[in-house]
């Protein structure tokens, strides 16, 4: 609901991270306020949208919840291309998932757009006894790489809304002139021409 003086922003947001880190759980908690203990592995990428009102703007997140499975890795650019924001998720009880998260960060920094808002989410913060990655470690890494870090728990909902709010606050208020999601809208006439020649 845009009020006078209140900006309306569309933001493509992508979640990346190792299998089982909790990407889908975070999204489901944020969008539907639901949580399932044994969340099924995502296939391909699931799409959600959710609108947030921050102080001066209404942000409509177009969220891509990508699969963490190895086979999708080389296809990830399709999902993070043109994204305004990314949440790289790892499981605080799993060192390997933290290492994987670092690789994602490096990949985004190398290929993504320089204005991308990046958040590092240390998920499953509710599992106090099983923790393997300290907050300090993750915080340090985040600072060194110009992203912000938050510990989250999709299960208890701790910091879930907060991480999206923080992203919303950091999104540039000046929208780029192209389609804000960075996607090229298909030209219908071109489609016809293409399919006619291609399948002729």
């Amino acid at each position: 609901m845009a009020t006078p003086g209140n900006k309306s922003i569309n933001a493509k947001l992508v979640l990346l991270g190792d299998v089982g880190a909790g990407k889908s759980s975070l999204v489901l908690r944020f969008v539907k306020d639901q949580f399932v203990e044994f969340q099924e592995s995502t296939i391909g990428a699931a799409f959600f949208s959710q609108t947030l009102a921050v102080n001066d703007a209404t942000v409509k997140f177009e969220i891509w919840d990508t699969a963490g499975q190895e086979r999708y890795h080389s296809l990830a650019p399709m999902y993070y291309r043109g994204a305004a924001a990314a949440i790289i998720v790892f499981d605080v009880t799993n060192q390997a998932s933290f290492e994987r998260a670092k690789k994602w960060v490096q990949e985004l920094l190398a290929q993504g757009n320089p204005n991308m808002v990046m958040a590092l989410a240390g998920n499953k913060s509710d599992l106090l006894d099983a923790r393997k990655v300290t907050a300090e470690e993750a915080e340090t890494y985040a600072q060194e790489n110009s992203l912000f870090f938050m510990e989250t728990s999709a299960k208890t909902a701790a910091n879930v809304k907060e991480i999206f709010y923080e992203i919303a606050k950091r999104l540039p208020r000046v929208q780029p002139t192209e389609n804000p999601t960075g996607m090229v809208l298909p030209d219908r006439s071109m489609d016809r021409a293409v399919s006619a020649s291609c399948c002729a």
Partner: protein
Amino acid sequence: MPSRRRTLLKVIILGDSGVGKTSLMNQYVNKKFSNQYKATIGADFLTKEVHFEDRLFTLQIWDTAGQERFQSLGVAFYRGADCCVLVYDVNSAKSFENLNNWRDEFLIQASPSDPENFPFVVIGNKIDVDGGNSRVVSEKKARAWCASKGNIPYYETSAKEGTNVEDAFLCITKDAMKSGEEEEMYLPDTIDVGTSNTQRSSGCEC
């Protein structure tokens, strides 16, 4: 959800028949019985799990027959091997001399991408036979050969001494992991009509 990555390694065991490969393997893998079809098909197959540094390895061990008549199967047997264990009998000079042939033959048939750095390990077996008195290949000589072939790690063992075999396999597991490091292998094609990016496009098959 995998907390540990699991890696499968194909390990080839080579050496003359009679050097004791099979009892070494049986000892390592803790099997109670010995297999019967090495004679027919040219190899026995064993599986062993190794834990190392929070990683889990499954060793798929190919205990080959060591006879000439199975030589032509080498290409198929050695295909995709991650590492190779060469075994000789310290009481048999011939079995030691043949290590060279086994190594060369393996490199020819398996043709690994980086032959200089392909992980080998040498095991000198039966050190306890006859109280060590019938030993003809000295440890010094064996180590010298190993050093000359790119610093192949060397271990000695006997039917009773199990830990050296474990060490040998742990060593080769580590070496195989190093050489196996991760260049993105799987890069599928997409049919991408109409976008400007450089995805490989295989065209449309209508």
